[in-house]
């Protein structure tokens, strides 16, 4: 097992620092009765999702965050599961979960890409 995969966590982490900042400054999450408080309403999100730039942003964001969390959780589990077989199992089992979640996360991006 090559530990150098951990380098990925630094690069994705540096990228995420910027992406999350954009993500957080854009959205005010708080809801009020009958819909979203600010730019989280169906119309506002639709408008953003129709722009190719935002689609690209979400694609990069999702990919980075998935890679980052995958390496992170794998790292934590590797501290508990120390046998080679167990580690291989962790690597593939986590990859399976993460790839399915990634595909799931792609749905709203792809669904809105055409408008």
């Amino acid at each position: 097992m090559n530990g150098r995969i951990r380098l990925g966590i630094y690069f994705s982490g540096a990228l995420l620092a910027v992406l999350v900042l954009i993500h957080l400054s854009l959205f005010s999450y708080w809801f009020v009765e009958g819909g979203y408080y600010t730019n989280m309403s169906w119309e506002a999100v639709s408008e953003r999702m129709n722009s190719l730039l935002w689609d690209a942003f979400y694609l990069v964001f999702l990919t980075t965050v998935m890679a980052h969390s995958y390496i992170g959780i794998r790292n934590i589990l590797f501290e508990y599961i120390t046998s080679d077989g167990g580690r291989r199992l962790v690597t593939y089992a986590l990859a399976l979960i993460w790839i399915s979640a990634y595909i799931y996360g792609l749905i709203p991006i792809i669904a809105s890409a055409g408008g």
Partner: protein
Amino acid sequence: MSRKGRKGILGWIIPITNMERLLYSLHRITGIGLTLYLFIHIYETSMRALGRETWISTSEFLDNPVFHIGLLLVVLAAIFHGANGIRLILQELGLIAPKPTQPVYPYRKYHRERRVYIVTITMLILGIGVAIFALRDFLILLEVLGK
């Protein structure tokens, strides 16, 4: 190989000997928390593909104090994880590592002083981050809860 005597998962928080050790524990706990949130968030946003009605009913379901406070915690965790993460990138890869030198008595004081400024800067970034994001969201939260 035996695990007898090893602290196990308690080793995350035992023994807390210094500031970075505490930051390590928090970084790990927030990391796991954020991963859990990530999966919920992916599920939640995938509701968009099901159309306008589902999106609005999801948003109405999420519109209660438990989720509001939960989201505030997530924002706080993300800011902490990010600010501490930047410190870790710089430090762990040795990008701002000092040159090793011959230790001088008393040894303990010696290397604590060298790292303390990095931790201080992290805390400063953290403070600014919390001030900008969390405070704003907290005020909105108060407003929403007041209605």
